[in-house]
């Protein structure tokens, strides 16, 4: 099965041609495996990355990430195109991750929030020239960020990852997780506030939340 052909066409053309994804979805509804392979190629990294951050164990995360695409293939006829395909795909991913977490009955640690001046940071940042916009992050900091994200509830974690990691808009996230836009904003704010409390030593000097 020449799944790679689609990937080559996507990479050479740069951004997907207008309507190209729509045509792929139409072909997928005809059970076109090659077309679905192209969609997998396009979204596998994003879905895999999202699920890896939502589900702690790697083996389980890989299984869930596969399940996302299997569910998408099984239910492609139900996709009506009113939302973006990415939104629909992440909706499946978020629901599967939350379902898996509920089955395991995970109880994340609660990080107490205090609103007010928390005083100076306890430690200097590991690199004074550190720019969070650069892809490379110090290993220790990376682990602490991952641990802080894992400490969030699934509801807060999913919104944080969909917005800050995957770049979905408030409206897209609202459609994906099935809550109002206002709730998305509340959850995003709370998730970031939790992370800020957990990562105080990496924040710049000054007021905390």
């Amino acid at each position, binding site marked *: *099965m020449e*799944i790679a052909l689609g990937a080559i066409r996507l990479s050479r053309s740069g951004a997907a041609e207008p309507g190209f994804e729509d045509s792929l979805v139409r072909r997928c509804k005809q*059970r076109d*495996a090659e077309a*679905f*392979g192209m969609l*997998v190629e396009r979204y*596998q*990294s994003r879905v*895999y*990355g999202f699920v*890896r*951050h939502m589900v702690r164990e790697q083996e389980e995360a*890989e299984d869930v*990430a*596969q399940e996302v*695409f*299997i569910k998408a*293939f*099984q239910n492609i006829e139900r996709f009506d195109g009113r939302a973006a395909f990415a939104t629909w795909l992440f909706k499946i991913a978020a629901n599967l991750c939350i379902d898996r977490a509920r089955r395991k009955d995970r109880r994340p640690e609660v990080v107490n*929030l205090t*609103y*007010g001046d928390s005083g100076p940071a306890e430690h200097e940042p590991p690199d004074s020239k550190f720019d*969070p*916009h*650069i*892809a*490379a*992050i110090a290993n220790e*900091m*990376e682990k602490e*960020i*991952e641990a802080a*994200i894992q400490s969030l509830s699934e509801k807060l974690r999913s919104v*944080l*990852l969909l*917005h*800050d*990691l995957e770049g979905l808009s408030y409206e897209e996230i609202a459609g994906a997780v099935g809550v109002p836009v*206002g*709730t998305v*904003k*509340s959850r*995003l*704010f*709370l998730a*970031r*506030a939790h*992370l*800020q409390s957990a*990562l105080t030593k*990496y*924040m*710049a000097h000054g*007021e*905390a*939340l």
Partner: protein
Amino acid sequence: MKPQEIMEKLEKGMPLSREESAWLDAQLESEEQNRVASFVQGLPAPTPSLAWRASLEERILREIGKKRSFWRRFETNPLFASSLVAAAAAVLIAVVWMKSTSPEPALNAEKIMEWHEEAVASASLPGDGVNMEGFATTGQQGKRDDTDGLLYGGSLHSL
């Protein structure tokens, strides 16, 4: 409007006022919030392995195969095919047999009358069955009884 009170409302999932929502929108764009967002954005993106991708392709092909499996089994499994044909034949034979042995579906008044007259005619057979000249045949009216009026829609006045 105190930030701590708004935080408590957010934690409890309580609705915010317009002013509180405006405060929330402003906070989402604050330096601290954006810094945390950049920490998350800076995380390395785990990529799926080739083995993961191969396993996924296998599962997708199996999904496609499920839809086609019925007809493939018909083509590739003689036992399955012959069982299906035998079952279909048995159903067909049963339907044909039931149709052939079913009674006359339509009964009407004319038919009932004809049967009655035949029955009446058969009662006129001579006792010894030898002299058949007076034998009443179908179509001949038998001697009518006064009670025939009751049987055939008459009235008690005839009695």
